[in-house]
């Protein structure tokens, strides 16, 4: 592990709009440099993406970018991050994805020329590798087409490269359903980490070749799956909270191989990564309810350098098309945070406190994201000897913080969830100290039909 200590030494410095290592884009957006920028993401209404429907698809994206950026100009946004996260057919057929990249870049250039609006495009190809079952992670058509889309997008001018990578997810879903912390750590900190190392080395090569930026990854398919399952009362919220802490270990690997932020919006583990790396992060919260529910609506904003809506369908609302409406909401959210920053550190910290305190005591998943607890967990991660130990340390720290918060009466935990704190602690106590022993144990437990150890550089005994 590269990071051995925290980049942010004081929890008061862990704040929205401010990162020790800000990122300056080609058009001069200074992410993490004193302003929070809106980051808009959007998707199609219910429809298929095929060669036959591409003319309609194109019209949707033309409409979205034109209308949303016009509204951003009218509201005097200081700059805008646009994220294009592809749908599976757009990665499977890179020509589809690249056509939309060109449309978005043309719309952004038109907004710059016409209104002087500064923008940057984050390109997030959908990770289709899991379409093969078991997933083939390092070769094959899904891998090659995904890289082709990254390459073409970077060449075209998409400046920020991101992904929601899926390495390890094929075992993680079942681990969640069984509240199996050992398998969670195996999926995230053994399989996930190895896939991230392989993947981000390749993305760094592409980024260097085209002079663009490796922004970051997210454990969305892991932590947010847990969050949604908890929201649906399928798994305990305390378990989802502990999973969130562990996801930071996996996502950190992108930064060890060239990512410099802003980390992906749906990575609610980003506060830990901001503390560890000092790079700016995207966050999403209340203004992403169009995409999914969460108990983190306000607290997520406490750390945002860009503030995102996650994704919204291009459908008509009363005020206008949904992406334009969400652009407006994001801009107002950002205005408030930027106004607080303008008034100085004391004012900004007051707003941060309100953002944090309004969520923290109501849900274990928010509790592990308070500035103090972010520091505790981030410190546990960088203090560990390897990724496996970091996963254990993050989980153990999160369990302890939840227990303490509950026992002090500062955190609500439903009674039927309390037993899971004990069972998680017991599971952690049973894990071997040696990673090789752990890997052998988990490989003997995992369904061999579900994953290919060789795709993660693991040997079958």
């Amino acid at each position, binding site marked *: 592990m590269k990071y051995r200590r925290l980049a942010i030494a004081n929890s008061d410095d862990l704040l929205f709009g401010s990162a020790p290592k800000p990122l300056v884009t080609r058009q001069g957006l200074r992410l993490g440099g004193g302003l929070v920028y809106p980051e808009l993401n959007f998707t199609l209404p219910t429809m298929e993406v095929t060669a036959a429907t591409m003319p309609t698809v194109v019209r949707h994206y033309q409409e979205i970018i034109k209308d949303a950026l016009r509204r951003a100009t009218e509201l005097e946004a200081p700059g805008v991050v646009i994220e294009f996260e592809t749908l599976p057919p757009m990665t499977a057929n890179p020509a589809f994805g690249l056509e939309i990249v060109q449309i978005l870049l043309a719309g952004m250039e038109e907004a710059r020329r016409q209104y002087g609006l500064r923008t940057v495009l984050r390109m997030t190809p959908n990770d289709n590798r899991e379409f093969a*079952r078991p997933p083939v992670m390092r070769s094959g058509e899904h891998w090659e087409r995904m890289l082709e889309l990254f390459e073409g997008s970077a060449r075209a001018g998409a400046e920020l490269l991101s992904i929601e990578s899926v390495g390890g997810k094929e075992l993680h879903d079942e681990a969640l359903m069984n509240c199996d912390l050992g398998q969670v750590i195996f999926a995230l900190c053994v399989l996930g980490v190895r896939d991230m190392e392989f993947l981000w080395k390749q993305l760094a090569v592409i980024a260097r070749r085209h002079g663009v930026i490796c922004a970051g990854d997210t454990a969305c398919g892991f932590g947010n799956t847990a969050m949604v*399952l908890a929201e649906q009362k399928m798994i305990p919220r305390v378990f989802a909270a502990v999973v969130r802490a562990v996801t930071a270990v996996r996502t950190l690997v992108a930064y060890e191989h060239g990512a410099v932020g802003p980390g992906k919006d749906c990575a609610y583990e980003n506060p830990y990564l901001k503390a560890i790396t000092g790079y700016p992060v995207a966050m999403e919260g209340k203004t992403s309810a169009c995409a999914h529910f969460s108990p983190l609506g306000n607290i997520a904003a406490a750390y945002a350098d860009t503030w995102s809506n996650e994704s919204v369908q291009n459908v008509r609302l009363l005020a206008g098309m949904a992406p334009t409406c969400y652009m407006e909401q994001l801009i107002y959210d950002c205005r408030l945070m930027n106004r607080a920053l303008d008034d100085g550190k004391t004012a900004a910290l007051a707003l941060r406190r309100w953002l944090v305190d309004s969520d923290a005591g109501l849900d274990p998943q928010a509790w592990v994201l308070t500035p103090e607890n972010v520091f505790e967990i981030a410190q546990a991660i960088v203090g560990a000897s390897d990724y496996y130990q970091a996963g254990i340390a993050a989980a153990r720290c999160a369990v302890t913080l939840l227990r303490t918060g509950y026992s002090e009466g500062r955190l609500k935990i439903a009674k039927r969830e309390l037993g899971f704190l004990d069972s998680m602690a017991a599971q952690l106590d049973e894990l071997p100290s040696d990673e090789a022993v752990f890997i052998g144990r988990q490989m003997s437990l995992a369904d061999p039909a579900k994953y290919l150890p060789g795709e993660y550089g693991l040997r079958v005994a």
Partner: protein
Amino acid sequence: MTTLEQLSQAVAAGKSKDAKALTQRALDEGAQPGDLVDQALVPAMAAVGEKFKNNEIFVPEMLIAARAMKEAMNVLEPRLLAAGITPKYTALIGTVQGDLHDIGKNLVAVMWKGANLRVIDLGTNVVPAKFVAAIQEFRPQLVGLSALLTTTMPAMGETVRAIRASGCPPVKIMVGGAPISQQFADEIGADGYAPDAASAADKAKTLAGVV
């Protein structure tokens, strides 16, 4: 407490070893294999499903019970087969083409098995032709289609149309998934919709004709 009652309790509590031992003891005492299923295992899983539906337990606790039932069934199945007893109702389930999400689908499959349906899981990213072929092969009373993405909802409609147009034996089609609604189910001609895994078992039993 009778052995059957003890077995039912062991399954509901997720005690696999006890469930296996009690199943054997009940058989040794002369209980009929079919009675063990109908009077102990299915009621136990129904009670577990009810607790889950009422937010009294989580999925992991339900899965532990399902594993205990499986242990009991492993003991019973040879006897059931020998007696020519098979589940009366068969259900197919799968996630539609273009969609890889399977957490919800897997949960529904667990609930259906708990209701003593024979469940054939076709997996994820299932093309319409595969559903049709499986219907012809297994002749189920029920087919469950799952989708999580708005962009794969059209594939659900295509699958329903393909099944209806195929000349397959009559089958009820049930749909579900985060973006799916009763209105959408009606639009594509599905016979039923369930908003969550817990209610999917009740709906399936109604559609398949169990109740």
